[in-house]
């Protein structure tokens, strides 16, 4: 019997912090990335090594894209670290989540009424906590960049506009659309990755050999696409926030 839990399973407590398997996985991802970052930092050269050129490629791609979208090198460089971190974090979490052993190595916990399987690791983005955190950061970031570009007073007019009846309601709509972005960001990422996990579990249970392979490729692709979608949407929303400063003088 396959048991699929919508929430990440809790493993234990670290002080006041309840540690679940998704948090553990994201710690792994962060740790791996930090090690990678250190390796890059201390092997950085004008003529790049392979690992350096991969990072350079990602960085150059996003920098070029953002310069095009924002029409300003300065703005692009200011926003870039945030957006790039979204991409790298989400991508590595998604790909680490596909690795065999994650979601399948664990313990059977004997509860009072039933026995449940407790995997040690679970794809970080298959926990709504992670995606919600990222979504909140993304949306707040958008507001902060908007305020930095337009000033607090002018930017607040985007949501609280008393210059007319229609404008007032447009502002209210705008406000709710920002709130809804949090939901759409978090549930899109969570849904895709969680569905992928479920799909892999189900296929592996039905036909354990060979058959899951195409679905693994699919999940690698989905993991990349979702990271890209999240990043792109953030870039575009920040562009919209910058627009407030540029319009209506």
């Amino acid at each position, binding site marked *: 019997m396959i048991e699929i839990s919508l929430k*990440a399973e809790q493993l234990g407590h670290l002080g006041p*912090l*309840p540690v679940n398997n998704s948090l553990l996985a994201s710690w792994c991802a962060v740790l791996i990335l930090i090690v990678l970052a250190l390796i890059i*930092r201390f092997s950085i050269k004008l003529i790049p090594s392979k690992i*350096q050129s991969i990072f350079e490629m990602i*960085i150059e791609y996003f920098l070029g894209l953002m310069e095009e979208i924002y029409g300003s090198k300065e703005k692009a460089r200011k926003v870039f670290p945030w957006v*790039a*971190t979204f991409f790298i974090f989400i991508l590595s979490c998604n790909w680490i989540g596909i690795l065999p052993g994650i979601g399948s190595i664990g313990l059977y916990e004997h509860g009072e009424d039933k026995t449940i399987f407790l995997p040690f690791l679970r794809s970080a983005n298959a926990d709504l906590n992670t995606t919600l955190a990222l979504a*909140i950061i993304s949306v707040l970031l958008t507001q902060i960049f908007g305020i930095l570009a337009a000033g607090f007073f002018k930017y607040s007019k985007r949501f609280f506009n008393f210059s007319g009846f229609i404008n007032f309601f447009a502002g209210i709509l705008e406000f709710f659309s920002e709130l809804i972005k949090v939901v759409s960001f978090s549930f899109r990422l969570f849904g895709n990755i969680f569905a992928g996990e479920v799909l892999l579990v189900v296929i592996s249970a039905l036909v354990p050999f060979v058959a899951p392979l195409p679905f693994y490729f699919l999940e690698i692709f989905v993991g990349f696409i979702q990271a890209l979608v999240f990043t792109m949407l953030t870039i575009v929303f920040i562009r919209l926030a910058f627009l407030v400063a540029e319009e209506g003088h």
Partner: protein
Amino acid sequence: MELLSSFGINGKLLLAQVVNFFILLLVLYFFVYKPIISILDKRNKTIKESQDEAERIKQESAELEIKKKEILAKAREEAMKIIQEARKEGENAKGDAVKKAQEGAQKIVSDAKVTIKAEQEAAFMELKKEVADMVIAVSSKVIAKNIDSDSESKLIDNVVKEMENK
């Protein structure tokens, strides 16, 4: 709220993920983005500089090529000029020498002619004188005392004239 708990939403976990993100942001910012962006800028600068440098060198070499051609053409022209001048000078010198030689030869010839003439004349005069003396001697011997000196000189003159006419 039941919805949230059914998804396992937990404020502490949320915060832990936010912290994760910020740790990663800081680490990546200082260890990856900043050095890599600076190195990208540096590389772009280097590439641009070396491109400019290459362009400059190319231009310079083109200029040098033109200059070289100019110099070569000039040198060739000058060489031609020098050769022509030398040829002209040589010809002049040759002409002069020939002329001088000719003049010298002419002079020698004319000198020789003058000398010859003078000698000839001198010889002739001497011959005349000798012939006259001889005639006098012969005639005085032949005629002896019969002829006076007046007719004698007349006769001599006649003989001389005859001889001259010959």
